């Protein structure tokens, strides 16, 4: 409790209690209750019902595809994010600010629009899609399209986590390393990486959560073909529209579980970063 500290605005007990109660109430009703609902609905048919729903063939296929997409997306955006952060925080050059602004674009674009962007380009009638079609390569309505669109949507995350951290740390240690004769790779591996470990980890966790949960963009490009191009979020939608509410929430509970792990991971990372 705030003893031994100068009194500040809003510190008096009545105000404090009211505000905390209000905040806690709204949060509980608005943010916490949904988690309760997910569990309640998912287990409405008991444990056996839950397991049955999870092990449903199409759901398993959806889980597999979702994991596969994440497995491809995360390393690619990780590598890009690291290069981008290195470029933008360790060098000065004209256009640096513009480049940094460009990373935020996927953040601001509606997922449906994102999906459409790729469909127009790589679909059967798109510029690139048409050319690829001649070689019988189909990207849209197949897993490559899902991966590409997921990369679009998740590419800012790692860079946005790394850039403030690397900017704040400054390049002194790297300069010292260069004077002592380290090569680029040695510098990154032994000097930079240990300093950005936790921010990098959190960026990866965020990217993964977003890659797994992407819905709007994937809706547009996947075609929702059960068993083939259905990701877990799409499966949730399909089950819900089939009026299989319990099944939908069972699948949703897996995604909610990943979300909770993400939140826990963030707390751990923040706690580790605060330690000197």
């Amino acid at each position: 409790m705030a003893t031994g500290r100068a009194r500040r605005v809003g510190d008096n007990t009545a105000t404090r209690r009211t505000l905390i109660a209000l905040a806690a109430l709204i949060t509980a009703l608005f943010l916490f209750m949904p988690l309760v609902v997910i569990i309640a609905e998912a287990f409405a048919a008991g444990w056996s019902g839950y397991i049955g729903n999870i092990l449903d063939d199409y759901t398993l296929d959806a889980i597999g595809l979702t994991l596969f997409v994440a497995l491809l997306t995360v390393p690619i955006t990780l590598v890009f994010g690291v290069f981008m952060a290195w470029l933008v925080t360790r060098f000065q050059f004209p256009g640096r600010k513009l480049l940094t602004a460009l990373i935020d674009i996927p953040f601001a674009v509606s997922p449906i629009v994102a999906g459409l962007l790729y469909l127009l380009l790589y679909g059967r009638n798109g510029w690139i899609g048409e050319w690829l079609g001649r070689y019988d390569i189909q990207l849209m309505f197949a897993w490559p399209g899902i991966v590409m669109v997921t990369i679009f949507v998740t590419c800012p995350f790692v860079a946005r986590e790394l850039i403030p951290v690397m900017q704040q740390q400054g390049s002194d240690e790297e300069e010292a390393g260069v004077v002592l004769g380290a090569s680029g790779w040695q510098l990154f591996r032994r000097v930079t990486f240990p300093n950005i470990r936790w921010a990098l980890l959190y960026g990866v966790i965020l990217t993964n959560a977003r890659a797994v949960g992407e819905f709007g963009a994937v809706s547009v490009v996947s075609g929702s073909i059960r068993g083939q191009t259905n990701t877990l979020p799409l499966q949730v939608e399909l089950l819900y529209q089939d009026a299989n509410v319990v099944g939908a929430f069972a699948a949703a509970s897996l995604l909610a579980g990943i979300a909770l792990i993400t939140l826990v991971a963030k707390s751990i990372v923040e706690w580790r970063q605060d330690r000197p």
Partner: protein
Amino acid sequence: MQAEASSISSSAAKRVLPGFGLSLGVSLFFLALVVLLPITGLFIRAAGMGWEAFWFVISDPRVVAAFRVTVLTALAASLFNCVFGVLMAWVLVRYSFPGRRLLDALMDLPFALPTAVAGITLAALFAENGWYGQALARVGIEVAYTPLGIIVAMAFTSVPFVVRTVQPVLEDLPGEDEEAAMSLGASDLTVFRRILLPGLWPAIVTGGGLSFARSLGEYGAVIFIAGNSPYISEVISLMILVRLEEYDFPAASAIAAVVLSASLLLLLAISVWQERSVKRLHGA
């Protein structure tokens, strides 16, 4: 600018830290391929329609209604989040109490939770037979299948934007300003209104702007609770999908081009605003 240009040509080969060429190459290649190319493609497609066809699509009454519904609901949701966000940031920064960490972590839930999951959950909660839906029905308020439901969904998904933007600013506000005001006899509310709020204002506007931009394009969380009746509770992202399902690619592109331009302009406005307020508060 001249000195900068000459320093590039003379010292381009002499940068101290290694990896400039490689990281520039990778970043430019990736951004061009993943971000710039598709966006350019859309704008060229939309431009290729010709002005008349473009206008015809955009001015279709159903599309206009969708724009109106989306903008108004996004606005309402962002306003709610501005208030709620400041409240939450205040409570999390100023007070310590058991459960504070949990409350803090929950603020990120909408960010981490897939929108489809949020969608069906909110729909289940606010439907006629849902826990909240039942309670609200007794007071005569209908949420599901109305624009109110859209506002709820948009508000949920963009909670983090205002809270997380205001929190750090609130943490860094100097305590001396408040103490000076209090010592001069101002009441708590006055100090908040005239000393603290002006300092928080840029963060609130930025967070609200981000929240608005996000809500404009929201799809997954909205479609389950909205009811999606044309002219009443159909959002613009759904409108694009509808046109796509009709195989009307030009129409879908036209609408998407408008939405994309709005998002990019908003993004630009927010970053310009941010830079200006940083300059004003901390000097250039």
